């Protein structure tokens, strides 16, 4: 249990600003962000669009450099992307020249695994995301939801300690989104991967997470955080519960107060 409590990721007083390309004026994006993540916890970060939540995730992934503050992963500063912190993007970003099977095998191949070894592993993970039998399809032949399942398998097959998700279901239709949320909830229970999910969908954030951070509009800072009291495994009926609605309103209120002023 002590191992479970260990914090893998530490974000400490993180600031970030971009230089606007047209006039060179610096644009503050992140304002004093601090939080910790690890131990198989599911964290959601919600906020209005353009608040810098994707930038935050990109920094954690190692896609963008740390300007000010510290981002430590297992005690080491994050300087580049790593399969330990796997990302699922808003669009699936599958490699269109590879089949579904080859897409999922991509990371295992880079890790030096032989075809004979990864073949069955890839099949297991495709089954896990309910995509068995689609091995030889090309991404363009799949629907958006199916592509995102493959992207999930491609990340999870590397057994990352941390899964970073950047509005992964935002581009999907409403029904598919619900199905994907259920799938993610199941998988996260099964694999106990730490997840950081960035989303603007408050219900999604609440339904999936153990902890929710609410971000302000730009420059983004945390204006509210709450521990979600509902036990896992959760079921669909939770969405209709009064306590769920109350928390949802609390978070929405937080965001609206921001937008108004």
């Amino acid at each position, binding site marked *: 249990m002590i191992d479970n409590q260990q914090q893998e990721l530490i974000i400490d007083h993180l600031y970030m600003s971009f230089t606007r390309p047209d006039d060179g004026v610096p644009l503050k994006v992140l304002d004093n962000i601090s939080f910790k993540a690890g131990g198989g916890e599911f964290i959601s970060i919600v906020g209005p669009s353009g608040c810098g939540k994707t930038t935050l995730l990109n920094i954690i*992934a*190692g*896609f963008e450099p740390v300007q000010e503050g510290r981002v430590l992963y297992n005690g080491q500063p994050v300087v*580049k*992307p*790593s*399969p330990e*912190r*796997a*990302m699922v*993007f808003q*669009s699936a*970003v599958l*490699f*269109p*020249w*590879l*089949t579904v099977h080859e897409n999922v095998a*991509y*990371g295992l191949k*880079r*890790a030096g695994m032989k075809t004979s070894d990864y073949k069955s592993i890839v099949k297991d993970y495709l089954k896990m995301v309910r995509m068995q039998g689609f*091995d*030889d*399809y*090309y991404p*363009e*032949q799949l629907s958006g939801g199916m592509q995102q399942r493959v992207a999930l398998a*491609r*990340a999870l097959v*590397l057994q990352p300690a941390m899964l970073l998700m950047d509005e992964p279901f935002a581009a999907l239709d409403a029904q598919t989104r619900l199905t994907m949320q259920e799938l993610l909830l199941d998988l996260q229970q099964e694999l106990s991967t730490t997840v950081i999910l960035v989303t603007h969908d408050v219900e999604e954030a609440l339904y999936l997470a153990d902890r929710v951070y609410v971000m302000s509009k730009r420059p983004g800072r945390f204006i509210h955080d709450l521990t979600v009291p509902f036990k896992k495994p959760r079921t669909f009926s939770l969405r209709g519960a009064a306590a769920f609605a109350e928390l949802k309103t609390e978070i929405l209120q937080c965001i609206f107060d921001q937008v108004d002023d």
Partner: protein
Amino acid sequence: MGNKQRKSRVNVSANSLRFDALGIVLPCLLIAFWYIITSYGRIPAYLLPPPLQVGQVALDFAVGTWQVTPYAGTLWDHALTSTIRVLRGFALAAVLGVPLGLLTGRISVVRRFLDPTVNMLRTVPGIGWLPLAMVWFGVGEKTTLFLIALAAFFPIYINSAQGASSVSPLYLRAGQMLGANRFSLFTTIIMPASFPSLAAGLRLGLGLSWAFVVLGELTGVTHGLGAVMMDARMLGHVDMVMVSMIYIALLGWLSDRILTALLRLIQPF
């Protein structure tokens, strides 16, 4: 490996192969017009031979049964010579153009070093190199190879560079996140992602190779379809000139089909 699904591309090529009756109307009219103006003596045969004569000469050039021209039955010899020249020049252009183009597209130092020079040289028309090539390499084989390689290099280089520079940064991020290092990022992301553009460059390059093999062969070699053309012109065999043109067009078309099939074999997507 299982059967890979190739839905969309197969459909596209099936479309292009489908017979469309409307497309055949204009060629028929042109041939009819050609037949009429030549058969009633309006235009003498030494300027424009009638279609049937050209057809017979073309067939004779291939099989040699009628011996109507001094070139009867020699098609395969000349076609093979020209094809080998095209392949050698094209291969040289591809071997240089693809890697240099990909590097130019990805590495800023290479681009800044190469691009201005290439763009400057590119503005000189390919034909404009002919006199200089003849001075440097003499008349014949080497000049032809030089001209082909030079002409085919530019579209291959430019399209490869274009493809490599427009690879989506998201693919690169996905690759890095999945554990690709600098080298494997190049071979497993940048190269396949640039492939469609690279393939277009190769096809353009091959087309130009056929144009420039003729130019090279016009300058005093004894073998090759271009040489036959020049020789036939001097002997007054206008029919042979036209027949050579037809066979060059056929070879160019055929080689493009083969190249396209090969490229699709490399990357079925």
